[in-house]
């Protein structure tokens, strides 16, 4: 077996599907098509933590994740708590010549709206607050019943939308924006970080860990569609 790196395994020549292979006998469930170059390949069992890559274009096809359900559920629950703290407590305080402004996460959205920048306000509201919230709630909606061995209503639809929302959750970009703003203002005023800022920072890592722990195939395999 040629391991490309410690954690990744390239598909082998023998795993390719030749035109002569009888697809009917082989069973389509043993096959996978690369989502980036459409090459058909045979699925192989993977060791822990390994990922299968497409032989032709190098895209990641699937990854073996242990205990995906429990780990994702635990991280999502932690995420919900952090999300509540991040949105209720003071985020940043700005002190300049005796004046002080205290903001929460949503203040920026409100101020943009008051300045008639409602398009920007909606975009920021969606990408930094609403989409992460929907992601957390949808994950709970999917994972809690699965943990109790039940199939939630409309599982397929909810999980499918969750997949499409992923690129629009931009908390880590928001965090970089905070860093840039704080450095910009540091010369002229005092910036005091609040509790919410810290929980927001931790939330980013928790959400990233939840996304890494989630194995979508584990959820899809629960759906008995036949």
């Amino acid at each position: 077996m040629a391991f490309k790196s410690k954690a990744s395994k390239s598909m082998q020549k023998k795993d390719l599907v030749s035109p002569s292979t009888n697809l009917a006998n082989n069973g389509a469930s043993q096959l996978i098509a690369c989502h980036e170059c459409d090459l058909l390949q045979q699925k192989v069992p993977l060791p822990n933590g390994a990922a299968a890559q497409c032989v032709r274009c190098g895209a990641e096809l699937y990854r073996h994740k242990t205990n995906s359900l429990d780990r994702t559920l635990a991280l999502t629950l932690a995420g919900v708590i952090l999300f509540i703290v991040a949105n209720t407590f003071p985020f940043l305080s700005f002190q300049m010549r005796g004046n002080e402004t205290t903001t929460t996460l949503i203040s920026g959205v409100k101020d943009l709206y008051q300045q008639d920048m409602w398009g920007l306000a909606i975009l920021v509201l969606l990408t930094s607050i609403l989409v992460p919230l929907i992601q957390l709630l949808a994950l709970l909606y999917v994972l809690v019943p699965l943990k109790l061995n039940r199939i939630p209503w409309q599982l397929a639809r909810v999980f499918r939308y969750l997949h499409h929302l992923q690129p629009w959750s931009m908390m880590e970009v928001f965090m970089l924006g905070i860093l840039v703003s704080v450095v910009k203002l540091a010369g002229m005023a005092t910036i005091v970080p609040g509790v919410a800022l810290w929980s927001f920072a931790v939330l980013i890592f928790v959400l990233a860990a939840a996304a890494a722990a989630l194995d979508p195939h584990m959820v899809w395999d629960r759906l008995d569609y036949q």
Partner: protein
Amino acid sequence: MKHTITAAQASLLNCHSCDLLCNAPTADNHLLATCPRCGATLHTRKPNSIARTWALVITAYILYIPANLLPVMTVTSVGKVQSDTIISGVIYLLLSGMWPLAMLVFFASVVVPLAKLFILSYLLFSVQRKSRWRPRDRTRLYRITEAVGRWSMVDIYVVTILVALVKLGALATIEAGSGAVFFAAVVVVTMFAAMAFDPRLIWDRLEDQP
């Protein structure tokens, strides 16, 4: 790679949402084809990928002009009014000696959106000209473009945070400018453009050979 076969050649396709390998829809049931497992609409390739991506890329090019010419924010400080565009913001950071920050903002707000537009234009051209040149590297280029685009939103967030923090009446106030709206539109439209492009088109040209 002579003895390989793609899903399309085998009349199969994988569901873009749950990865289930399904039988490709035939011409007559085309509109009705949904994934039996997750219910997503099935397509062998993303529909009208080239035309849709071009439309979005060209839109983004047009929006990019006002995004850079109009101010992204206006600072009013003790009677003085100062408007900043994206570039003048970077120059201001550079002149104040914060060059690591200047580099970061320059990279996220100027290099990333432009590189993304150029790369997508190139990929579209190469697919339309049926190029066979280095498909693996072109796919990688697409993958990077898709992953890095969101970071351009940094400038929008900086404006949002500054607007929320600096509102001390006559002493200092910051307002968002219309440039920010156009810039946000560029980021959103390029993200949709990257999603509309189908990297499998790069590989389809290799299978056209006699």
